[in-house]
């Protein structure tokens, strides 16, 4: 069958990375085309090219008999391409009909003046809601009162109202219950029968087998192939999604057999107030590096934030060296010797108005101040000594300690933050995506520093979405999915396939 749209040999480069490398992707009428890949594989970039948000560096986009070098958001909408993002874009304070007809409100003439034709809108909205099985809702219901699943249906109704030929759904099931997923699939089948093409992005392999017709698997910006879904097993999918050359730079060597000491840190039945981490229990032994694997939003960073006191806990205990700790905010975590390197360095890791010296010294100073970090004097000379030592120990490359940290490279900024926690003398250090956006050379330096910390008896926890990183660095890996721990592996028995499988919620 003639495809509705064809993306041919699409290549997109960003500074330092090839986000898409020669991708061929098409959508035919009446099919569900699944797009599968890890975080960062290039799925979103491809869809942004389809929506006209990005311009490809190479390749063409063919729609009918027209050939384009790029699409604009306007062209994309005109050709009937509609994208439903994971973070739904429905406007909560408008009602359903306004959301559906936003920017295209039908009008009528009243006394020669154009006014909104509410009668027509109401009728058409009611009809659309019927089609997406949302007939129980009135067109005038505020979207803010709808559930996530209902909001999704409103967005689908909107796509139908615009007569979309292609509807892209970015992880539409990630926050739906099983029942809601079933309802969604009914609608998707209906869209198919009307001859529309659906692009379905998901990590959930069982859903893919159920709803998908064809599948394109991506990995690190490359296309691993496009197949009939029926031809592949879930194991095939996982293998193609993660199967990559594992670089040996920071790999465990066989002669490195670490002896672990007593239990240093323990987390018992931790549940967050917002339920984004549920009943999490684990132990960390002295000298051990413990990894957390899983998809974004699986509850890994969320668990760490709760341990660190940055997000409220509903229940659960945190024990250091057998003693129960009360941690209600990061200051109390710091006082108890827990530090965290956050995922977003720029936003949550350092102070852009501070010099390297001040950024390094702040945790030490806070820890040694009284009254919740309020009472204490700063000591320029002592501060300088602390910073000098970290600069030498972890080889921070900076023009001077007085230089602003914001002027350093990402890797050196990360070293400054690491230096901050090392200077404060922490007992447990949590690394959330420690090498995100950091060049290969600095990466391996940071891995060495982490191993060095563990050898000194500091507890090290690593949250990472890069499986090779976890497999090369950690002694033990815990996998989380949907806020819970789904599997735990010793590094000697862990493989990327096992981790990926556990991350989708299917326990191996």
């Amino acid at each position, binding site marked *: 069958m003639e495809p509705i749209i064809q993306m041919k040999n699409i290549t997109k480069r960003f500074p330092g990375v090839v986000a898409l490398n020669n991708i061929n992707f098409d959508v035919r009428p009446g099919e569900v085309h699944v797009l599968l890949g890890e975080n960062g594989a290039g799925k979103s970039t491809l869809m942004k090219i389809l929506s006209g948000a990005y311009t490809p560096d190479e390749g063409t986009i063919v729609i009918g008999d027209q050939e384009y070098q790029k699409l604009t958001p306007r062209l994309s909408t005109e050709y009937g391409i509609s994208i439903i993002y994971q973070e739904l874009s429905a406007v909560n304070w408008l009602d359903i009909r306004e959301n559906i007809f936003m920017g295209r409100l039908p009008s009528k003439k009243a006394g020669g003046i154009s006014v909104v034709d509410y009668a027509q809108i109401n009728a058409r909205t009611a009809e659309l809601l019927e089609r997406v099985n949302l007939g129980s809702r009135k067109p005038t219901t505020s979207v803010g009162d709808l559930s996530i699943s209902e909001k999704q249906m409103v967005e689908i109704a909107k796509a139908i109202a615009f007569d979309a030929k292609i509807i892209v759904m970015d992880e539409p099931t990630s926050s739906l219950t099983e029942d809601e997923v079933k309802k969604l699939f009914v609608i998707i089948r209906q869209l198919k029968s009307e001859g529309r093409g659906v692009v379905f992005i998901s990590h959930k392999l069982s859903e893919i087998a159920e709803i998908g017709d064809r599948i394109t698997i991506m990995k690190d910006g490359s296309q691993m192939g496009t197949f009939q879904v029926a031809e592949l097993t879930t194991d095939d999918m996982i293998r193609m999604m993660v199967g990559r050359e594992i670089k040996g730079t920071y790999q465990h060597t066989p002669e490195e057999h670490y002896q672990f000491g007593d239990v240093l840190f323990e987390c018992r039945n931790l549940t967050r107030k917002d339920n984004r981490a549920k009943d999490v229990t684990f132990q960390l032994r002295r000298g051990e590096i413990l990894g957390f694997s899983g998809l974004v939003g699986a509850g890994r960073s969320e668990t760490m934030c709760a341990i660190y006191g*940055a997000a409220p806990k509903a229940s659960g205990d945190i024990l250091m060296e057998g003693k129960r700790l009360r941690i209600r905010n990061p200051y109390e975590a710091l006082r108890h010797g827990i530090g965290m390197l956050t995922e977003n360095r720029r936003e*949550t890791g350092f102070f*852009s108005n501070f010099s390297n010296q001040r950024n390094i010294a702040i945790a030490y100073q806070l820890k040694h101040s009284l009254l919740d970090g309020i009472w204490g004097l700063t000591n320029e000379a002592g501060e300088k000594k602390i910073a000098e030592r970290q600069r030498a120990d972890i080889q921070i490359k900076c023009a001077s300690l007085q230089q602003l940290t914001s002027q350093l490279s990402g890797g050196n900024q990360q070293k400054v933050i690491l230096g901050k926690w090392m200077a404060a003398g922490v007992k447990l250090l949590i690394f959330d995506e420690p090498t995100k956006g950091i060049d290969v050379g600095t990466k391996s330096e940071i891995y060495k520093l982490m191993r060095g910390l563990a050898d000194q008896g500091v507890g090290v926890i690593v949250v990472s979405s890069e499986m090779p990183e976890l497999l090369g660095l950690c002694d033990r890996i815990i996998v989380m999915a949907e806020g819970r721990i789904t599997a735990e592996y010793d590094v000697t028995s862990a493989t990327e396939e096992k981790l990926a499988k556990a991350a989708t919620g299917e326990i191996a």
Partner: protein
Amino acid sequence: MIVEENQMKEIEKKKFTFGDYWDKYSTVTILAAMIFVFGALQPASFLTGGNLVKIMEQSSITILLGLGEFFAILLGGIDLSVSSIMALSGALTAQLMVNAGMQPVVAVLLGVVVFGLAMGIANGVLVTATGLPPFIITLGTQAILRSLVYIVTDARAVSGLPASFSRIAGGKLFGMVPVPIIDALVTAVILAIFTRKTQCGRNLYALGGNPQSAWYAGITVKKHTIIAFAISGLCASLAGMVNIARLAAAEPNAGTGYETYAIEAVIIGGASFFGGVGEIPKVVVGGLIIGVINNGLNMVGVSSYYQQLAMGCLLIIAVTLDRFFGASRKS
């Protein structure tokens, strides 16, 4: 890595540019330029010791308000209620002395120190508890407190302050230096030490620079926000005390609109409106600049109608220069 080393050398080699100069000395340069211009136009009356002391005395209220305002702006916020705190503290202190018959020392302790801190803490608690922008909260408290001034004074001036109070608070040290100048300078010195030498001061810069990083670094964000507003409230009530001492009465309309002077002093003093950047001594200079403009234009014979015009132009020019040559241009 080679690239990085080269970059580092470049940073080390970089010459001292106009931007660097402007970064450090913008405020002092503007003040010097003002004094030079007015001095050249009216050397006989403007450049006398007596007039310069007068300028400082006139500026003392702006400086005190600016010193407090600095902490609200340092956190990326603002405190619009300083003018009302100033008026209410003055009115309250006057009432305590005149109608309640309290000793001036006790009245000042209650009406200035305790009351100012309490109002500032109230602002801080409201800001942290509601999560609303300080602009909105302090716009509200500004109106509320101004209304309370009218209620407390029955919209009439409170006069007949004890002679001992006027003599000391409105007098001159060694018969030369007006006490309001001493009040402003001592406050400035204490706050300069506070910002440079204490952990709390350092934390406030961190919090203003990046509130999220501050939270993750272990800074108790709410407590520090309350402290910043408490300092602002205390400084405003000190300004209220100076004001009633200078006028020997508490006026219900005292300080109306002065929050703009306070903000101007801080901004001309080079503080970033986005928070995290600024220095106490420069706020003092910023306050003096406003005093010099008002006094100088008077001396030169320019109608007072033009004073606001001059202030407005100066504010925009100073911040524009900062935008194009100052530190903010780098990030």
